[in-house]
């Protein structure tokens, strides 16, 4: 996978629609204190499924919606989307590479991807034994194809997750990125101030980093 574009609208201090186009190699993000650099990092962890408002430096999740300034009114919605291109085939809808070499899991994944969850359907996780491997309901990607994940939050508290413009579950996004360091314990995203804490964190917190990669 390769990172193509991030688009923010009404997310924290990014009131107007803003596009960040990514290039290969190393990109530096610079600017004065308080201008919105870490808000871009928050937008990335948020669209990847971050559930804790505290990790986004807020008190409640609505704190991510643009709150207004002296001359602008607060907005009613925050929306972020992230577009990536597959550099090689992603056969079973899991960017982290097949977690399990079992042939049936690849088959289950193909079936599931063919009929994405209707948003009304009860999640199959709730009943019966957990499937041998969680069946990602994600599109399979061929090299060169793009995938866009999205997230919206309304002031009412309603929220949507999206894949290629279609509503999906949070789980689908997490499944897609599991094993890449971008979901859950996200070892690939180091927020401001966190680098000094990794060594002094508790032994079980460090374990979570390794487990994410296992």
């Amino acid at each position: 996978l390769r990172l193509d574009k991030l688009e923010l609208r009404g997310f924290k201090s990014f009131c107007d629609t803003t596009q960040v186009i990514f290039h290969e190699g190393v990109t530096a993000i610079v600017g004065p204190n308080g201008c919105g650099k870490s808000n871009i990092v928050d937008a990335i962890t948020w669209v990847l499924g971050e559930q804790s408002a505290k990790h986004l430096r807020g008190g409640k999740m609505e704190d991510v919606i643009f709150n207004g300034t002296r001359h602008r009114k607060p907005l009613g919605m925050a929306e972020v989307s992230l577009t990536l291109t597959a550099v090689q085939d992603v056969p079973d809808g899991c960017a982290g590479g097949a977690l399990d070499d079992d042939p049936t899991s690849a088959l289950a994944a193909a079936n599931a991807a063919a009929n994405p969850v209707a948003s009304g359907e009860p999640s199959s996780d709730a009943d019966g034994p957990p499937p041998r491997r969680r069946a990602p309901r994600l599109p399979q990607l061929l090299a060169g194809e793009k995938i866009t994940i999205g997230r919206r939050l309304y002031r009412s508290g309603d929220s949507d997750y999206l894949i290629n413009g279609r509503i999906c579950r949070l789980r689908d996004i997490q499944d897609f990125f599991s094993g890449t360091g971008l979901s859950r314990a996200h070892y690939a995203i180091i927020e401001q101030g966190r680098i000094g804490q990794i060594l002094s964190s508790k032994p079980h917190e460090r374990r979570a980093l390794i487990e994410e990669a296992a």
Partner: protein
Amino acid sequence: TRRRFREAFDHINAYFGEIFQELFGGGRGEMLLIEPDDPLESGIEIVAQPPGKRLQSVLLLSGGEKAMAALALILAIFRYRPSPFCVLDEVDAPLDEANIDRFTDKVRAMSRQTQFLIVTHNKRTMEAADSIYGVTMPETGVSKLLSVRFDDKPSAVTQAISSAA
């Protein structure tokens, strides 16, 4: 999953030792399972010994040494399970110039497989980047992105950004 964890732990540990030596120019970095007979539950202890110094608890390390050791661990996990991209927000704040150079060299070497986004205030780190984005607030409280030409030398870019702020 016991086998998978063990395999991940062993590989990452080997990489941690290697990258630690590259970032510190020697010394020893290692992870230990606190309860080796129970790999599925055990917490992880980190041993970090800068070159020439006695082995001591990681808590006695300096601010810069702790940041470099943590970076070595993160990059070791990366090498085992690469990620499409990596985001680092002001991880260079506690580093001196020599360590910033070692950190940016390492990141540039890994940037062939992985895209890196690095938030920084440090000119040396900016100079190591392939492209630079400036964030400004021409209208207080509303963030805007400055599109930047990539062939500019970073000093010209930071000039443009501070004058736009």
